[in-house]
């Protein structure tokens, strides 16, 4: 009995711990010395990670349901709000925890003066992500969506002394707020139709019904809103602006979990709410989601190759990966979902390591331009190795966990009768990893040209953020003294610390390596594939667990049947190595002086695509409106 | 009766909302937006949502106009 109480208390504790930590950090950080703030924040993030890891284990096999305020459903009607914990959701939550911990450790020396507010925002971000992953209530999902968004807007604009982060934050905030409104309208429509806000109960009410206009539009508004967060073409324009200009520790959280949350919501809402609609809409919906996924994967990869600003390049790499995950999710099979979730974990860790590595370079060399940094990697060997390793595992280098994810995805595509999807995935992975490897080759080996082959050397090559991050984090919160209204300038200390020749602090070198090591460890864990997507995709089992209709006898349907350890099979390894080699070739060609004509031609050929990424919020909102309408039209065709 | 009140409030909100968007000068817009905010509060009240109406008044008629005006003051000051 005691044990039961304590495990069920873990569920609320996973959001209560970070929220309480954040509230204290926001309200009382002025009472604490700097080291205490850092330590408390890291401890809270690690504790949250531990709690969510416990939840993965505890929810394996059957979802754990927790009713807030003690309001259990009565007479088949849901009264309160529940958390429906499944391994996939708890896994996403623990990924958020791991990355938040890494980011906070990294901040130890990265921000010179953070005054606790940055930590508070990171912890609230973490709590909101956990809520987002666990909640079983549609409106609570919207609230979590907005909370993730609000903390993210503020964190993006953290370096408020430069135009690029501010503009990135504005584009991000405007587009994602509209996404939130779209979600909320969808919530309203579904409530009007089904009289419930609980995912399971809405799903039960819609099961077996034929979709009409309202349901189609509700689906399009909900999914469209989530796809804005997931930065899927054509909702993606804000992502490079925000990720390319946010502070590095924040990029880690964004690239690793935030956008993935959008995809998580898409599949969760589809599975629990819409998948039971009559008319066998699955295959057609698969085509729609795959279309968006493929477009995103390819556009992201091509754009990544066209970048020379490292953070913006990683932003497009992230976007390309989001497309790949959407392909996995969009197959709408447990196997595809399993592959996508392994990729989310593996790639999330690797991308975070890459961002952190770029942060070290920026910290030491005061630049993030691949061209300006050419040949300046000496003295940063560990970081160079980190970045190259990160790029290689993104391309699928075994036995890292991403290669297992790729293998599952390939199997899923085969099973779905869509083997050509593999080619799209391989191509995007090769191009995006090749871009990162090219940058590494230029910086650490001094290969390639010292000027850009881009036809127009636009402003974004070097968006005025060379000296970012340290010079403007002076948190000059000095109060006006009783007599002297003096300006306060506490950043002198900080400026000195960012001196060029100082040794890189270990708190900046170790977190990226630790993240890669976690991914490697997961890849070596036997049977990771089998555990990847348990019981999530079974709407009936989910509804039964939430609504308690089948008193305890929850079928373990939806369990993944994985063909005999695909990652270890010779074919899988060969494919992975082929991808790695191809990525190296892409990087080699991009750096080879003889191939300049080819590069010019490619740059000219993709110029139109780059011009679409104008960074103007008006354009982005126009695309958003068009995308919502397009999605609605496609959903009409798929669901009706 | 209540139907008529709601209809009036809806028309008021639609018209003033459009005016907010079409008023291109931010200072003028701030005042039109206040009028729109009051319209919203009136609409919410007529829809029997007292709590929401009260929130709308404190946010739409006190807090946000204040912040918009302060932002405009800051922006205008920098310019001058």
């Amino acid at each position, binding site marked *: 009995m005691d044990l039961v109480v304590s495990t069920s208390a873990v569920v*609320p504790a996973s959001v209560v711990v970070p929220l309480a930590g954040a509230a204290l950090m926001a309200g009382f950080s002025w009472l604490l010395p700097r080291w205490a703030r850092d330590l408390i924040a890291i401890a809270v993030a690690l504790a949250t990670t531990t709690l969510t890891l416990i939840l993965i284990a505890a929810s394996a096999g059957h979802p754990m349901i927790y009713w807030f305020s003690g309001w259990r459903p009565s007479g088949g009607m849901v009264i309160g709000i529940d958390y429906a914990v499944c391994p996939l959701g708890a896994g996403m939550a623990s990924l958020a925890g791991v990355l938040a911990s890494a980011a906070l450790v990294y901040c130890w020396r990265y921000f010179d003066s953070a005054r606790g507010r940055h930590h508070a925002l990171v912890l609230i971000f973490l*709590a909101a992500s956990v809520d987002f992953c666990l909640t079983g209530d549609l409106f609570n999902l919207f609230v979590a969506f907005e909370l993730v968004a609000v903390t993210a807007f503020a964190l993006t604009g*953290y370096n408020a002394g430069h135009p690029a982060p501010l503009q990135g934050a504005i584009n991000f905030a405007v587009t994602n707020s509209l996404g939130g409104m779209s979600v909320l309208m969808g919530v309203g429509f579904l409530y009007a139709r089904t009289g419930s806000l609980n995912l399971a109960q809405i799903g039960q009410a819609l099961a077996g019904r034929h979709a009409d206009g309202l349901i189609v539009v509700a689906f399009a508004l909900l999914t469209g809103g989530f796809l804005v967060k997931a930065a899927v073409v054509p909702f993606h324009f804000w992502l490079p602006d925000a990720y390319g200009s946010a502070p590095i520790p924040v990029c880690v959280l964004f690239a690793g979990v935030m956008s993935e949350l959008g995809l998580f919501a898409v599949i969760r809402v589809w599975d629990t709410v819409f998948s039971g609609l009559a008319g066998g809409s699955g295959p057609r919906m698969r085509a729609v989601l795959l279309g968006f996924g493929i477009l995103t994967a390819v556009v992201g990869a091509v754009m990544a190759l066209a970048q020379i600003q490292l953070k913006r390049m990683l932003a497009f790499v992230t976007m390309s990966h989001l497309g790949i995950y959407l392909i996995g999710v969009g197959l709408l099979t447990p196997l595809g979902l399993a592959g996508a979730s392994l990729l989310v974990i593996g790639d999330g860790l690797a991308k975070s390591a890459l961002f952190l590595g770029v942060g070290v370079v920026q910290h030491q060399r005061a630049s993030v331009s691949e061209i300006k940094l050419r040949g300046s990697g000496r003295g940063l060997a560990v970081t160079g190795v980190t970045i190259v390793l990160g790029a290689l595992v993104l391309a699928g280098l075994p036995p890292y966990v991403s290669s297992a994810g790729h293998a599952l995805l390939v199997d899923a595509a085969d099973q779905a009768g869509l083997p050509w999807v593999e080619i799209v995935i391989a191509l995007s992975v090769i191009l995006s990893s090749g871009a990162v490897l090219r940058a590494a080759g230029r910086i650490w080996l001094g290969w390639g040209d010292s000027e850009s082959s881009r036809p127009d050397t636009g402003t974004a090559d070097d968006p005025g953020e060379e000296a970012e991050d340290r010079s403007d984090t002076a948190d000059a919160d000095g109060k006006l003294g009783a007599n002297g209204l003096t300006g306060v300038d506490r950043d002198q200390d900080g400026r000195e610390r960012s001196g060029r020749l100082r040794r890189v602090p270990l708190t900046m070198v170790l977190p990226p390596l630790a993240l890669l090591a976690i991914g490697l460890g997961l890849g070596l864990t036997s049977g990771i594939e089998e555990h990847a997507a348990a019981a999530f995709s079974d709407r009936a089992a989910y509804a039964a667990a939430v609504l308690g209709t089948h008193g305890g006898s929850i079928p373990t349907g939806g369990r993944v049947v994985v063909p005999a350890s695909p990652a270890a099979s010779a074919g899988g390894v060969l494919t992975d190595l082929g991808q790695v080699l191809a990525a190296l070739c892409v990087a080699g060609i991009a750096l080879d002086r003889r191939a300049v004509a080819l590069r010019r031609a490619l740059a000219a050929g993709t110029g139109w695509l780059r011009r679409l990424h104008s960074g103007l919020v008006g354009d982005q909102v126009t695309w958003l409106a068009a995308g919502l309408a397009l999605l609605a039209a496609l959903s009409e065709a798929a669901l009706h | 009766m209540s139907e008529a009140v709601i209809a009036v409030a809806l028309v008021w909100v639609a018209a003033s909302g459009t005016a907010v968007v079409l008023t291109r000068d931010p200072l003028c817009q701030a005042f039109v937006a206040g009028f729109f905010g009051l319209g919203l509060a009136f609409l919410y009240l007529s829809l029997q949502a007292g709590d929401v109406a009260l929130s709308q008044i404190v946010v739409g008629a006190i807090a946000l106009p204040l912040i918009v005006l*302060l932002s405009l003051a800051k922006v205008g000051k920098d310019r001058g």
Partner: protein
Amino acid sequence: MSRRARLVFFAAAAAALAVTLGAGLAGLPSFGSQITSYARMLNELAPRQRHVTDVVSAISFDYRGIDTLFEEFILLSAVTGISVLLRPLSDETRQLPEDKVPDRTIPPPSPAVWLLAVFLSSLLVLTGLETVTHGQLTPGGGFQGGVILASALYVVYLGTSYVTVERFEPAPLLEASDGVGASGYVFIGLLGLLAGAGFLSNVVGLGVTGNVISGGTIPLLNLVVGVEVAGGFAILASEFLDQTAVIRPRRR
């Protein structure tokens, strides 16, 4: 895109979006025709189960209390974020506005203005407190009352002068009340957990319906939300006020 191209594209997109929304809205039950059985049930149950008269606050703070918890943190994040964004940066300084005529002394505000400000702000404080404490009884509650309380502080600013208020250094106090309010919500939620019920369970005595102290944790939650919102909105306004009044580019 050129502005013209964008407008044309938007016109097409907006037309399509209008059709989409129209299709969705057309599927709604006709306006005013029905409310859901969930809502009917709560309207019936809440006054009896929770000894409140305002069902909306029972839903916000009890049946769906976790939503409001996160809502408070949205506000806290926004306020924290704004403090971060509007902090004086390294090339800025805090300085009172210089007088254009250097040897003129600024006259202190007249006693009449001062009195009026004190009167007005005490009126606002009373209204705010009444709104906060009657959350479970009448429309209004922690959020609405909190904003009213915050506005009281600004009447004091108007009536006296910036320097007078700053001399009391209200910022740490406001920040603390923001944090106390938000963590207070969490800790009241923990009461339920400690009592062996779920997080945010209403385990305090429910009292007599219609009483100011009734509804169990609902008035307590209203109170902490009021504290948080009052602190939060006061910080919000003071950050923007600082930008206008005292933060200016540093001359090199």
